[in-house]
């Protein structure tokens, strides 16, 4: 099963992040403009060297033609310009669409840029309502489910089927926070214990507030081009080795399986295209919107047997010093989660670690990274595998 057929031919040559966490001084549009320009500069290019822009819309400042508005703001007329909306999976689906657009001759070099400000440009209730509006308007939303409630349903089913415990879900939050405590930009840096998670405020049983990702502001961007065009840049190009998608349903009440997701198909496609297996991956950047989502991705992407995600997390393997470093920036649980752009920060962290320019946080032996994102309620999945070697 092949992924996109583009594996090995495209590389990431630039990246940028805005300030993250609570960033009230810039609107989502302004953050998106800033990271677009910063990523182009990081690649050693001028805006006139880049002829494509892919963005996603912002909940806090929706724009009908979002990508065009960002280009216009910069006085830029890219040849290819499009807004992508696949929820939390947008990051990697947009990345693959960028590679496909270059392959098709629609552009030579593309910026993928995303930003949103759920924290500072929306009220708490607005942010909750807009996120829960992913539920079916006739057959889910009328009952009052929240997004944590959807993941609470998944968590309970996993507990019932595999004996997973609330303490094992908590291990995911503890691991991400341990990494965030080492990152000066992370929104939440105080180290936490399993007991802290278990004793935190109940949100939607069995999930507590520390099982839930943050509500943040922030943006990030990357620059992608053909690998044979990367020779003169200032940074080590990071190659897209493999890509895969999986789409099982949209609404959680229509899921045929609550505990195994289409991350299985997504991962298998990406591994096949990259010619790699889970054992070959040195860095994991997974989509930790809620702790059970992270645990299920670990299983479905093949890092442990099905049903053993809880034991895997509790072993400490994902924490600082462990053999499978996971979400080394702190993830959406602790670094930042501005909505649809959330997975961008796993991508920029992976690029940084693979380049070897993560500074005091640099981990040894980083050669391959697997980045995964999912949209909806474990509904649609996208996996990208990156490599540091030329």
């Amino acid at each position, binding site marked *: 099963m092949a992924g996109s057929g583009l594996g090995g031919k495209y590389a990431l040559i630039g990246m940028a992040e805005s300030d993250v966490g609570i960033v009230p001084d810039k609107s989502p549009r302004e953050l998106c403009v800033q990271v677009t320009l910063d990523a182009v500069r990081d690649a050693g290019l001028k805006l006139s060297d880049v002829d494509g822009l892919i963005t996603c819309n912002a909940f806090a400042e929706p724009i009908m033609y979002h990508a065009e508005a960002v280009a216009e703001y910069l006085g830029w007329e890219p040849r290819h310009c499009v807004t992508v909306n696949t929820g939390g999976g947008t990051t990697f689906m947009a990345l693959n669409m960028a590679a496909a657009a270059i392959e098709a001759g629609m552009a030579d070099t593309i910026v993928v840029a995303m930003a949103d400000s759920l924290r500072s440009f929306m009220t708490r209730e607005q942010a909750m309502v807009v996120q829960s509006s992913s539920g079916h308007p006739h*057959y*889910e939303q009328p*009952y*009052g489910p929240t997004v944590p409630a959807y993941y609470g*349903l998944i968590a309970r089913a996993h507990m*019932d089927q595999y004996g997973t415990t609330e303490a094992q879900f908590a291990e995911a939050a503890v691991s991400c926070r341990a990494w965030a405590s080492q990152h000066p930009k992370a929104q939440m840096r105080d180290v936490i214990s399993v007991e802290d998670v278990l004793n935190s405020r109940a*949100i939607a*049983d069995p999930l507590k507030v520390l099982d839930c990702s943050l509500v943040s502001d922030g943006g990030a961007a990357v620059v992608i081009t053909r690998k044979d065009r990367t020779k003169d840049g200032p940074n080590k190009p990071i190659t897209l080795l493999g890509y895969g998608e999986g789409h099982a349903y949209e609404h959680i009440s229509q899921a045929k399986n*609550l505990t195994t997701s289409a991350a299985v198909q997504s991962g298998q496609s990406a591994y096949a295209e990259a010619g790699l297996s889970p054992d070959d991956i040195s860095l994991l950047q997974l989509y930790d919107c809620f702790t059970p989502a992270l645990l299920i991705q670990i299983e479905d992407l093949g890092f442990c047997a099905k049903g053993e995600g809880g034991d895997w997390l509790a072993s400490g393997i994902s924490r600082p010093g462990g053999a499978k470093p996971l979400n080394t920036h702190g993830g959406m649980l602790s670094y930042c989660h501005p909505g649809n752009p959330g997975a961008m920060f796993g991508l920029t962290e992976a690029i940084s670690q693979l380049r070897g320019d993560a500074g005091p946080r640099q981990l040894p032996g980083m050669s391959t990274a697997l980045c995964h994102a999912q949209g909806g309620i474990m509904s649609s999945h996208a996996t990208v595998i990156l490599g540091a070697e030329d």
Partner: protein
Amino acid sequence: MAKPTPRPTPTEQPFYDACAQHQLILQHCQGCGHVLFYPRTHCDQCQSEQLVWKEASGQGSIASYTVVRRGVSADFEAPYVIALIDLAEGPRMMSQIIETEPEALAVGLQVSVDFAAWSEDITLPVFRLHPALDANA
């Protein structure tokens, strides 16, 4: 914020009309025998348009559940129980389990349908833990 309330399409209207009469009805596919939920114009197994409505037993079991401790908006007073119910006829639906203690809930328990007025025009199916469970307790 108003409570989200369905605005049925013509395809869906029979389901809500039945709910108003305190009946749960489901579409059965004449092509392949599949029983559907939610209501559709096409069977989600064989894509046939030959769908007929039949009354359901109203019985089901809990596939999963969560107790919402922080309501989605001021219109929903927490705590309340959101559940996925596997209906005896096959399909799964999201609903609320009403008038229960969270401690009494478990995956696999039997539930029976009831109906709750949601707005002036809309009545929705909700579920209760099976009365037989109390009788045996």
